[in-house]
């Protein structure tokens, strides 16, 4: 009896696990295929020069997606400028400096922050942050890329903190002891030993943060003003922008299936997909390299 059960399990469970593992690949492939199928017709329906133009006004067939790409990039860049130092600083504090009891309180709180729906943050942004920014910086309007970057920074921080802290925590204590024994200060230990040792995990944290930021929709749609203006100067941070995600979210509901506008929206989705693919591939290749070097040092 028992033997029979065992056999059944041995046959079934590993395959189930294998299947769920492969399913991730399958789903990504299917999504990519779907995006290609729905997005690529845009390239034949709209001239390439018109597609990469600076005017986005789909109801009059102006399908220039450059403002949307630059809008997404500037908001993401701004968010990362805020989230990376802040997130890694928090992670370092929690893992290296804070006493045990404080860490036990901080960690669940940060994770709770990560679970906050972005729509709630959007409300805060529209009611508190953007009016404040307008008065404080004397801008024409507070609904700007900066407001979006600040909110997205806030959204990315918990992701970065949580993963970076785990990575720092996994660095063997003997590394720190070794550094201290050689007379390194606490700061030198953190900056020269612990952080480099946890580099791959910290980079993963940053990349996941970037991914979270560039794909975020709701909060951005509420606070960036959604004006499709080309954002190439640094001052664009203080002007309204329109991101790719907000465009898809705002317009996908309206388009008729199979129209040019529909295909262009999918094309934007494809661009978004490719951007996050590039980010991920770069990240993993960097992580891969750094692992090799660490292995070399250890051997």
């Amino acid at each position, binding site marked *: 009896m028992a033997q029979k059960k065992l056999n059944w399990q041995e046959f079934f469970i590993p395959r189930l696990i294998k299947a769920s593992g492969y399913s991730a690949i399958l789903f990504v492939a299917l999504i990519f295929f779907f995006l290609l199928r729905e997005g690529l017709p845009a390239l034949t329906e709209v001239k390439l020069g018109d597609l990469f133009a600076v005017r986005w006004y789909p109801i009059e067939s102006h399908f220039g997606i450059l403002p949307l790409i630059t809008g997404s990039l500037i908001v993401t860049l701004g968010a990362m400028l805020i989230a990376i130092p802040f997130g890694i600083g928090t992670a370092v504090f929690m893992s290296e400096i804070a006493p045990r009891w404080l860490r036990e309180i901080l960690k669940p709180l940060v994770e709770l922050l990560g679970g906050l729906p972005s729509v709630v943050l959007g409300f805060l942004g529209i009611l508190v942050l953007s009016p404040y920014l307008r008065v404080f910086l004397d801008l024409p309007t507070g609904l700007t890329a900066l407001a979006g970057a600040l909110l997205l920074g806030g959204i990315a921080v918990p992701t970065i903190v949580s993963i970076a802290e785990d990575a720092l925590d996994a660095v063997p204590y003997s590394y720190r002891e070794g550094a201290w024994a050689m007379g390194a200060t606490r700061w030198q230990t953190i900056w020269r030993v612990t952080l480099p040792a946890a580099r791959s995990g910290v980079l993963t944290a940053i990349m996941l943060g970037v991914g979270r930021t560039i794909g975020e929709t709701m909060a951005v749609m509420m606070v960036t003003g*959604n*004006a499709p203006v080309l954002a190439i100067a640094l001052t664009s941070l203080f002007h309204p922008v329109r991101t790719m995600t907000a465009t898809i979210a705002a317009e996908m509901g309206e388009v008729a299936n199979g129209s040019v506008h529909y295909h262009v929206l999918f094309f934007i989705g494809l661009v978004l997909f490719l951007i996050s693919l590039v980010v991920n591939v770069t990240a993993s290749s960097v992580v891969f390299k750094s692992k090799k070097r660490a292995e070399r040092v250890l051997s």
Partner: protein
Amino acid sequence: MTLSAIIHPMRYARIIISLLVILLTACAVPAGGGSGQSSSQPQTTAYIENKGSDTIVNLALAWAETYQGARPDVRISVTGGGSGTGLAALINGTVDIANASRQIKQEELDQARANGVEPVEFIVARDAIAVIVHPDNPVSRLTLRQLSDIYSGKINNWTEVGGEDRPIVRLSRETNSGTHVYFLETVIRLGDKTNTTLFSMDTLLLPSSEGIINEVRQNPNAIGYDGLGYVPDDLKIIAVAEAEGGPYVLPGISTVNDKSYPVARDLYMYTAGQPAGAVKDYLDWILSSEAQAIVAELGFVPILADAP
């Protein structure tokens, strides 16, 4: 020892599988419920799906509530999303009635016909588009031409229209909004079909009426527009003149009905083919004086001359 350790994971597997089964059945029930119910209980409950223009959504909700109060056998679900969204849903066959604050476009009509749907149009109410500014803004009247120049980006400072030295922040609804299209055609292009002026590129496209009202309420630089029924009392409504030197008119029921306020339009409902059954009864009721009284209550303009 080892055996019990191995059996444990199997229990988990059972739990997981039973959870999956529960999940699947839970998903299946509401999906099948909509179609199953009408066949199992014939004629007791009629469902009407009503979707579209955010301008009309409050009005449609008020109608639906009143109508369901009098006719408990009818269930009406009302959602917004924009005129384009509602019409797209009608074309795709997912709603019974589409609300629209603009007329159906030719391309939408073509798509509907390609899908085997013949949209039928009903004018259900009228609406005035109010141009709104912050209450502290000294500007209280503008001509259509000035509005057009503001929104197309030719006028960028309030001093040019007699206000303070402040930049103008233009607010608009998203492009899927019927109000947006109407404003573009009637105000920015001044009703001229050959005119191809567009919204200035830096016009803020906000996803909701609420977003526009919120920004106008707190930003003295802003100018926005919205259906009259949505404008709260604490914002300033601009009086609009059709031409230079003409009378400046504030939007209201009387000025819309005598056509002196230039930025007013009809509101529509579309059905797929000539309505029948519950949908027809509902539309007939909407055109009655009882339903049109609700129109006036909500700040829209009733279509019946004899309605209050």
